[in-house]
């Protein structure tokens, strides 16, 4: 059993890792055909992952409701809305509109999901303003630099700021294009090198945490 649980997955990872890293550099039709087939598998697996995610969500919240844990009422609301949406979605054949006429599923999408998600995102502006007032203080030299940069970018990104201080637009562009881009690039390169190192470790079986912690 250890062979099936450990050695086989490690072998599959090793072979597919090396083959697909090499595939990128081989433009032969057979190599391209192989990539086409594998991406189709990926799409199919992606579909199953969705089912797995939904069933896992149901399972977690079912336990909460059964045990009457704190906030179980929210889990109940989740159950009702999810089952309701699935039922209406299946009934509407997954379409929000048919020949320009809104279906029940479209009604749920347009008049519940869109405003709810929009509201969640919109209230961020209020919390950001409140948090900025409470915590954006020039406590140190670094914090002062950050504060000045933030004020310049905030001024430079809106017409009123450019109207009041015409230089703020160009200054904000410079901050974004030079200071921000160079630092971001350094972070990106670091992250990419880390990803390459981790991939090599996974391919050659040095990193095995993805296999899970089951009994040997």
């Amino acid at each position, binding site marked *: 059993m250890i062979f099936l649980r450990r050695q086989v997955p490690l072998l599959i990872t090793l072979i597919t890792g090396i083959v697909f890293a090499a595939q990128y550099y081989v433009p032969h039709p057979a190599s391209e055909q192989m990539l086409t087939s594998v991406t189709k598998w*990926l799409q199919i697996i992606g579909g199953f992952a969705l089912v797995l995610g939904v069933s896992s969500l149901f399972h977690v919240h079912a336990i909460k409701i059964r045990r009457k844990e704190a906030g179980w009422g929210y889990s109940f609301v989740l159950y009702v809305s999810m089952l309701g949406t699935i039922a209406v979605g299946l009934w509407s054949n997954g379409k929000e509109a048919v020949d320009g006429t809104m279906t029940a599923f479209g009604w749920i999408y347009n008049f519940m999901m869109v405003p709810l998600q929009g509201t969640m995102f919109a209230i961020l502006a209020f919390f950001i303003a409140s948090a900025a007032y409470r915590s954006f203080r020039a406590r140190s030299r670094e914090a002062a630099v950050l504060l000045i940069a933030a004020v310049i970018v905030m001024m430079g990104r809106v017409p009123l700021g450019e109207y009041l201080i015409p230089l703020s637009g160009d200054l904000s562009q410079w901050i974004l294009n030079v200071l921000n881009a160079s630092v971001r690039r350094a972070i990106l390169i670091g992250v990419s090198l880390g990803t390459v190192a981790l991939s090599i470790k996974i391919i050659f079986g040095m990193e095995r945490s993805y296999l899970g912690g089951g009994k040997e």
Partner: protein
Amino acid sequence: MSFAERMLKIDRRIIFLVIGFCTLLPLLYPVGLPIKISPEVRGVYDYIESLPEGSVFLLSLDFDPASKPELHPQAISLLRHAFRKNLRVIAMTLWVSGTGMADQVVTQVAREMGKESGKDYVFLGWSPGGTAVIINMGQDLYGAFPADYNGKPTKGLPVLQGIASLRDVSYAVSLGAGNPGVEAWYVFGKDKYKFELAGGCTGVMAPGLYPLLRSGQINGLIGGLRGAAEYETLIGQKGKAIAGMDAQSATHLAIIVLVIICNLFYFSLRKQATQQGHSGA
């Protein structure tokens, strides 16, 4: 408790009220300040302008309703521009929760511009797999999307004539609110299948995409509501983004004023504490 201390611990509902007014008043009484066009937004506009009629324009609406206020106006402007230039438009999404919204915006703008589904444009909808969908489209477009959103087989659609994969796309723009989005389109799409790419994103995401812009990995970037307002200005069709710029101006200014006030009180308190320390010694 001193005045400065009380002001630093001000009830946050007052701040909410200030932001609420700063958002609402400019929407009711717009000022319409001029909007300066940035080079990154002009990059997208100029490239679409340079495309000959019938070129293939792919628009991936990779966002959900949470980012609608910023990315919806971008999508409308880009679609209006592409349809006006008589480009063949392929629209799609990598975000399942954005499918209905994407369909609505594409259909609405197409109807407004007198374009026909299947002939002038196609909405492919969503397919599972995230970034794998991009690779699959790069290998075989019809394998990734055998049918469009309305269930019509994609093979044989006049709008897709001569298109086999992403290699045949003249220009792609991803309007992304996260992952998969602009970066995924570069890493899994442009880098391998060699098409020109640009991005559109929410305001908070824009600074993270500047390295791609500076290195030429994307040839333009539409950032947030401001970017959308710039694009609306460029195509000469005022929309929700230009209308929202006054509100954004006012809220930005309100936050700046709040931050300055908070720092003034903070320094006055610090000075007070230092003076008390000296007199105590």
